[in-house]
């Protein structure tokens, strides 16, 4: 009994808040010469990727003021790294395409009380227990145009992912955007 008590009482703590689950991932093409670039173009809307986007329907966009807040954060980070924003895609060295998508994962399970007594396992008239969590993913892709603007390809990607709390949290998003550029020192051109 003492041993069981010790084992249970020392059970470790997991994540304590939503931002404990935030992750930022970046990757880049190490053959691409970022230092020789200087300008970029960025759309003024952040697209929401949904299941209907590939069926030719009009895309959804992130609502204001969140859209502008996120774009401003990206632009201030790029300015600090030495990049200049331009309006004409044909004169820009690179294009940065931001996007978000939301994904809800639902799990249901039953017989979670089997540990209590075998008699209750395997009966068919139970109600399943349901749990779910929703994740939000924010993607920034730096795309370089190929020769004569044919065959564009991604030279850098930054992805922020976290479990959504149900309320828009600019602090978490801005922190993740900052982190994506912070862990990409090769983007610094000045």
């Amino acid at each position: 009994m003492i041993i069981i008590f010790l084992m249970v009482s020392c059970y470790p703590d997991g994540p304590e808040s939503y931002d404990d689950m935030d992750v930022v991932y970046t990757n880049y093409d190490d053959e691409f010469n970022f230092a020789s670039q200087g300008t970029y173009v960025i759309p003024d809307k952040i697209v929401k990727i949904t299941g209907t986007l590939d069926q030719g329907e009009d895309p959804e966009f992130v609502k204001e003021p969140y859209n502008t807040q996120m774009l401003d954060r990206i632009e201030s980070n790029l300015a600090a790294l030495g990049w200049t924003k331009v309006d004409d895609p044909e004169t820009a060295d690179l294009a940065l395409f931001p996007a978000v998508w939301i994904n809800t994962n639902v799990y249901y399970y039953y017989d979670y009380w089997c540990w209590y007594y075998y008699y209750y396992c395997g009966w068919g008239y139970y109600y399943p227990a349901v749990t779910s969590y929703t994740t939000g993913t924010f993607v920034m892709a730096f795309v370089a145009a190929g020769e004569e603007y044919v065959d564009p390809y991604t030279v850098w990607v930054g992805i922020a992912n976290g479990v959504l709390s149900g309320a828009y949290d600019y602090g978490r998003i801005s922190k993740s955007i900052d982190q994506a550029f912070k862990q990409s020192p090769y983007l610094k051109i000045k």
Partner: protein
Amino acid sequence: MKRIFAFIIFGSLFFVPGVFAQQGGHLSVQYDISFGMGDLGDYISKASFRGISVQYRYAATENILVGVDAAWYVFYEKRDYDTYTVGTQSISGIQYRTQNEMPILVAVDYLIFTDKVVNPYIGFGIGTLYTERATDMGIWRIVQDPWHFAIKPEAGILAEISGNTSAKIAVKYYNGFKSGDLDSQGFMAVSLGFAFGF
């Protein structure tokens, strides 16, 4: 409490036969505190306070006990927010690292004395060590779960409390050799428990 231990260890050393050298066998259950070393120590630097070990021994001769060991240890550490880079890829976040170690060994112990209440022994085990290393970051989990070939040197003391019950204190070192994509996994365990003769 210290006086009780001192009494048990030093006051009863003389001329009382060691019970486990004479009986057919004993079963011991211990609470273990363990410390990761090498690759495991690098992965989780905190000590584990979640460990239990069970040992069965049969007296093959007066001095030699043979038997089996089974144990379960859980190492855990929450790492601060940090960035991990491999090649061109970087990922930042809080990592939750958990490692379960479950050795199953055949073992032999050598009792230094056979006629004392406090009976030091040395032992050696050989068998397998199942490792489950889980790295949680965000909603993702990376799991590595190889079986290792393992050895375990051990030294300890059996201190008789009553006719067929002894306190057991031991220090063990488990080493599971490289297996799969995991390097050799080693840890030291300090055990405290009771042995019951039958």
